[in-house]
């Protein structure tokens, strides 16, 4: 098992190194002639107005939140799915209860109108 993780670690390092190397080589090959107009922020083609880090609406946060709850829920279900062939019907009913409780949460969010993109 540890060998597999070693391979994965090496692979991840290489996967980071190859694009980095490509970017580095391209940086050597490419011309460097900056000037103030070229280096100004493109934005949408106009002059930038105000600061770039604007405040966002709460909708993104709500999606993030619902996603987080469902992500944690599903991660808890994965060990059960691996053991599925060994669990009795009782285990399945238990998971149905587990999911039903959370589905009611989804229903609440839905009814509240928090899932609408406005």
């Amino acid at each position, binding site marked *: 098992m540890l060998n597999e993780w070693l391979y994965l670690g090496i692979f991840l390092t290489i996967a980071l190194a190859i694009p980095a190397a490509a970017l580095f080589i391209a940086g050597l090959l490419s011309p460097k002639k900056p000037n103030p107009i070229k280096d100004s922020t493109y934005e949408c083609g106009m002059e930038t107005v105000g600061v770039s880090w604007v405040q966002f609406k709460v909708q993104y*946060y709500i999606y993030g939140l619902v996603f987080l709850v469902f992500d944690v829920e599903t991660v808890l279900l994965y060990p*059960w799915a691996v053991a*599925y062939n060994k669990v009795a019907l009782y285990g399945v009913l238990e998971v149905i209860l587990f999911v039903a409780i959370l589905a009611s949460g989804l229903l609440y969010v839905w009814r509240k109108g928090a899932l609408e993109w406005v």
Partner: protein
Amino acid sequence: MTGMQILFLITSAVVLFSSIMSVTAKRMIHSALWFVLALLGVAVVFAMLEASFFAVVQVLVYVGAIAILIIFATMLTRRALEDKGDQFNRATLVTLVIVSIIFAGLVVSLKSWAPLQNLTSPLSAEQLNVGVLGLALTAPDGFTLPFEVTSILLLAALIGAIYVAYERKEKKK
């Protein structure tokens, strides 16, 4: 020193450094990004302990969900991204002293804890199977009640957070 130990030292150094940076960084989003690096380091430690499931869950839940939620939350705050304020105040020194005392106490009490004295044996292939965890969670004589309570806890978190975050909208109607 084996390769494992060197790797562990490097990872721990990265985790510690990025944790400190995440506390002291001036801009909130930089803190969040350093925090992500610290979480990734912890995932590597899990992988080295052969806890595959927890290594992956660490990345999936913490980096993939919680960190993104934190970044979304920083974007909700007004002008926090350009905040150049001082990261330390008068309480910093006092807190540092208290935390050091607690940490020293932890180290001392852990040193006398029996399971830390001898090395644990490597897990067998059977124990590494994630299914064991699943069976324990859902078997009638296992952890059924905690499993279901988790679901209720998650539900409470969801409803509570939506209630707090969404109140403003309802008033408008």
